[in-house]
């Protein structure tokens, strides 16, 4: 990942903090931490208990991260910006207290609220209000930088490697295993939504969701004779200004979902029962599911760009 992209994302977050009056961000979500610091960490599945994985201090402009080593970090972050893994809440609190600008913070934004962090913050930042800042991060991430769109397109091309391998798997082979091994040969072993491939009559239903260099890519559909079936109407409707009603009218299946895609699952989230007040905007990137078919779409000022087009 380029240092320029990491720096540009960091600047956006610092600007959003200033606008929201948030002095310090304490981020527990891996994707939020990845956004501000670009650090690649060991991937684990599923939800994690909230912990201070990454700290952004507005006053110093510095980003600090939980790690006992400097592997996987990008400039401008250095070893001196890290605080070590610990099992001991007192040691963690001491690490927090040592971060320049944290003790005097007036407002600390977190991406998830927990009773234990409130209690800990009362010790290392006694004057601080702890406030929800998940919306601050979601707001910044809602619109993609050009470098992010390129990274998503690369991840989509990786997803196609899996899809093609599933399509080319022999009758006796497990198409999912074929996709897994083909992706691994390209160095991709981390799923986003996962790898699905199932034979249905004459067709193969495939949905591949992977993460490559911290960005998600995906594609899905039922393939008959090697060609992908299904309507592109919902993807075509993903234009600047499109409303929930526009998308609902374009969807051909009852189970449709239009959701942000970037460093994983993002905002907006628009589906039959959710996102009624949302409106699409240029520079969003969306995973667009209409029944079995799924594409990744870049919303632009003019026509939508399909990032998951077959390479």
């Amino acid at each position, binding site marked *: 990942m380029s240092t320029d992209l990491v720096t540009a994302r960091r600047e956006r977050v610092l600007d959003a903090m200033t606008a929201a009056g948030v002095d310090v961000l304490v981020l527990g*979500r*891996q*994707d939020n931490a990845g956004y501000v610091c670009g650090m*690649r*960490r*060991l*991937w*684990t*599945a*599923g*939800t*994690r*208990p909230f912990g201070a994985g990454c700290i952004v201090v507005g006053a110093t402009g510095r980003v600090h991260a939980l790690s*006992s*080593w*400097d*592997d*996987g970090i990008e400039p401008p972050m250095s*070893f001196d910006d890290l605080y*070590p*893994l*610990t*099992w*001991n809440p007192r*040691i963690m609190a001491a690490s927090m207290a040592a971060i320049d600008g944290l003790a005097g913070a007036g407002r600390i934004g977190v*991406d*998830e*609220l*927990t*009773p*234990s962090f409130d209690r800990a913050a009362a010790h290392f930042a006694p004057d601080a209000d702890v406030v*929800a*800042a*998940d*919306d601050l991060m979601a707001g910044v991430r809602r619109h993609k930088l050009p470098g992010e769109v390129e990274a998503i397109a690369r991840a989509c091309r990786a997803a196609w490697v899996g899809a093609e391998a599933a399509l080319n798997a022999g009758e006796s082979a*497990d198409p*999912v*295993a074929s996709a*897994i*091994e083909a992706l*691994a*040969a*390209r*160095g*991709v*072993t*981390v*799923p*986003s*939504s*996962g790898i699905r491939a199932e034979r249905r009559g004459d067709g193969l239903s495939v949905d591949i*969701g992977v993460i490559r260099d911290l960005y*998600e890519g995906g594609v899905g559909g039922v393939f008959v004779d090697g060609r992908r079936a299904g309507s592109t109407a919902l993807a075509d409707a993903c234009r600047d200004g499109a409303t929930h009603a526009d998308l609902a009218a374009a969807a051909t299946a009852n189970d449709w979902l239009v959701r942000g895609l970037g*460093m*994983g*699952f993002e*905002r907006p*989230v628009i589906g039959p029962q*959710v996102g009624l*007040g949302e409106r699409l905007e240029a520079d969003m990137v969306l995973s667009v599911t209409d029944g079995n078919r799924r594409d990744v779409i870049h919303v632009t000022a003019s026509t939508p760009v399909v990032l998951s087009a077959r390479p």
Partner: protein
Amino acid sequence: MSGDGAPVDEVASPAPDPGRMGSERLGRLRAQMRAQGVDGAVLMHGPHVTYATGHVPEAVDASHANHCRAVAIVGAADGPARLHAHGEVGEAVAAGADLGALLWPELDDGAAAVGAAIAEVLGDVTGRRVAVDAVTGAMARTGVLDGAELVDASRVLGPARVIKTADELACIDQSQRHTERAMAEARAACVPGATRAEVAGVFLAALREGESEPGSDHRNEIDPIFQPMPLHRDGGPRTSTGHVAFPTGVDNPVFSEGDLVWVDAGVGWHGYMSDFGCTWVPGRDPNAAERSLFDRWMAVLEASLAAVRPGATLGDVGRAARAVEPDETPWLPQFYLAHGTGLESAEMPIIGTDLGQAFDDGYELEAGMVLVFEPVIWADGVGGYRAEEVVAVTGDGWRRLGRGHHYEPFGT
């Protein structure tokens, strides 16, 4: 056990009974809630949801898991737990949970429905003690749980989860056996010239072999680690521990004949996590110095296991391990001699961490606890040996979970 490698246990645990497992877990959770005066629990962390309802969330990226969270709501009185989940819910049905509509607790326009579901199950929460593992920003902005006294869910889940039922132990045993089988294929692929990801691909594909029931499959929970280690402490990334960095797990190195490769993987079955650790030597036999590391590692493991019994403290076990290697603590400084496993891959009890000796000395082992031993023996210039062994504490000692392995290529 002997230094020639662990004996192999051919007898698997009996198949778990999902209904019994669900009701026993819920009973243990409620016993803790009542003992601690907790009126209700609103749970959104995957392993907590599984414990309360039997629902096993998919092993997807955290960003997906967060947005498509399942929510479990549990009152302190009897009756089924409530589950609101996206996707497959067959395991929750088998465990006896009561199903509600799917929720979007991350989203501002989804939070009110979370509040309504909580009110439906728990009634008015004003002034009542409610255990939560997390409150999303949307829930906070919407005022869901306002007026309740919130307590950390881990305070009720932790003591309930640390003692495993027979069904939970059977799940860990099966998960470990399946992981061991897939790892045998991965080891054959771990040769000079292969990449980390290629070996991971063989492992992940092999996990699918022998699958049958949807929803009870083996789900990979960690990007599998096959990390070639430096021979010197300062030969890898800079660390704050003075020891080597492990697991970094972010690159895609090509293996070569000189490597010692540390292996670590975790796979869930009905949500229960295996933990496989070993040291592999691509393309050659270990040399005498490397074999000596393994022999010392085995001595630490045997001494540790000899101290495992109900009533022994974590401190007793740690001291037994240190007595074998008095010059240097035989585990990584940022980790532990042993940790538990269950619905998460690093649970209590943990032995030898920076929680300190007083913590270890005050914590007694009980039957039904699980320990994953992972000592490390390091000789600067030679490298290190690391492997893992999963055991359950029994009424009078311990028993292995998983079939066991021969620590190839170091064992027989």
